[in-house]
C-alpha cells in the first residue's frame, strides 16, 4: 500500500513537472521543473527496485546534465518566449490534451496484460548485479560507451573553441543580396 501511495506522489510530481517544462515561458524555470521531474523519476526507479539506475539518474541527469542546461541558459541570457499568433496559444492546449490522451490510451490498452503483473521483489538493480553484468557480458559496449563520451567531449571542445563570424550585417542586408558567413578556424 505504501508503494502505491509513493507511486502516485512521484507520478503526480513527474507529470506536473513535465507539464511545467513544456508550458513555462521562462527557460530557466523550465530547467528547474525538469530537475523536479528527474527526482520524481528517480523515486519511481527505486520503486521498481532499480537502485543503481536511480542513483546514477540523480547524479547524471539531475546533476551533470541539468547543471549544463542551466549554465548555458544563464550564459546565453535567453529571453522569455513570446507568441505571435493567438490561435496557436489556444490550439496548444487542445494539442496537449489530445497528445496526453493518445499516449495514455496507448499505455493503457497497449499494455493491458500488465495490469495483473506487479513489481517483483528482486536484487536485479543493485550495484553488485549491474557491475557484474557490466564488466563481464557487457564489457565491450561499456568500453565503446567510454569512447563515445571521449568523442563527445572533444566535439564539444572543438565546437566551442572555433570562432564564427558573420561578414557584414546579417540582419540589415539589402534584399536579394546574400550576406557572407566565414568560418574562421584557429
Amino acid at each position: 500500500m505504501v508503494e502505491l501511495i509513493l507511486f502516485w506522489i512521484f507520478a503526480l510530481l513527474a507529470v506536473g513537472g513535465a507539464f511545467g517544462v513544456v508550458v513555462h515561458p521562462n527557460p530557466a524555470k523550465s530547467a528547474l521543473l525538469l530537475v523536479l521531474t528527474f527526482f520524481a523519476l528517480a523515486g519511481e526507479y527505486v520503486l521498481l527496485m532499480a537502485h543503481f539506475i536511480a542513483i546514477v539518474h540523480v547524479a547524471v541527469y539531475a546533476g551533470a546534465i541539468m547543471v549544463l542546461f542551466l549554465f548555458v541558459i544563464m550564459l546565453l541570457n535567453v529571453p522569455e518566449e513570446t507568441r505571435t499568433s493567438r490561435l496557436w496559444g489556444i490550439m496548444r492546449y487542445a494539442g496537449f490534451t489530445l497528445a496526453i490522451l493518445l499516449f495514455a490510451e496507448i499505455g493503457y490498452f497497449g499494455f493491458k496484460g500488465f495490469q495483473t503483473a506487479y513489481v517483483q521483489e528482486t536484487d536485479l538493480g543493485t550495484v553488485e548485479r549491474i557491475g557484474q553484468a557490466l564488466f563481464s557480458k557487457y564489457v565491450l559496449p561499456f568500453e565503446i560507451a567510454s569512447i563515445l563520451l571521449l568523442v563527445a567531449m572533444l566535439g564539444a571542445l572543438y565546437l566551442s573553441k572555433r570562432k564564427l563570424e558573420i561578414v557584414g550585417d546579417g540582419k540589415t542586408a539589402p534584399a536579394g543580396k546574400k550576406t557572407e558567413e566565414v568560418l574562421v578556424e584557429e
Partner: protein
Amino acid sequence: MHAVPINHFLILAAILFGLGVVGVVSRRNAIVIFMSIELMLNAVNLTFISFSNYLNDIEGQIFVFMVMVVAAAEVAVGLAIIVAIFRLRETVHVDDIKLLKW
C-alpha cells in the same frame, strides 16, 4: 508483495513521452526543445526499467545505462552547437535559424 502494477509505470512513461513530444513540436526555444527530448528519453528509460523488472532480466537496466551515456554526449555536443549558433546569430529561436546555409 509490492502493490504497484507494472501497467501504472507504463502509462506514466507514455504520458511523459507524450508531454515531451508536445514540447518538441510546440516550443520554439532550442534549449527547451532539448529539454523535451531529455523528457522523452527518460520516459523510454522508465519503460525499459519496468520491463526489466517484469521479465526479471538485467539487460533493460544495462540499456538504460547506455541511454544515459548517449544522452550525456548528446547534451554536451548539442549545447555546444546552440552556444555556437547563439554567438553567430544572437538567438536560439528555431524560427530564426531555419536556414542551413545563407
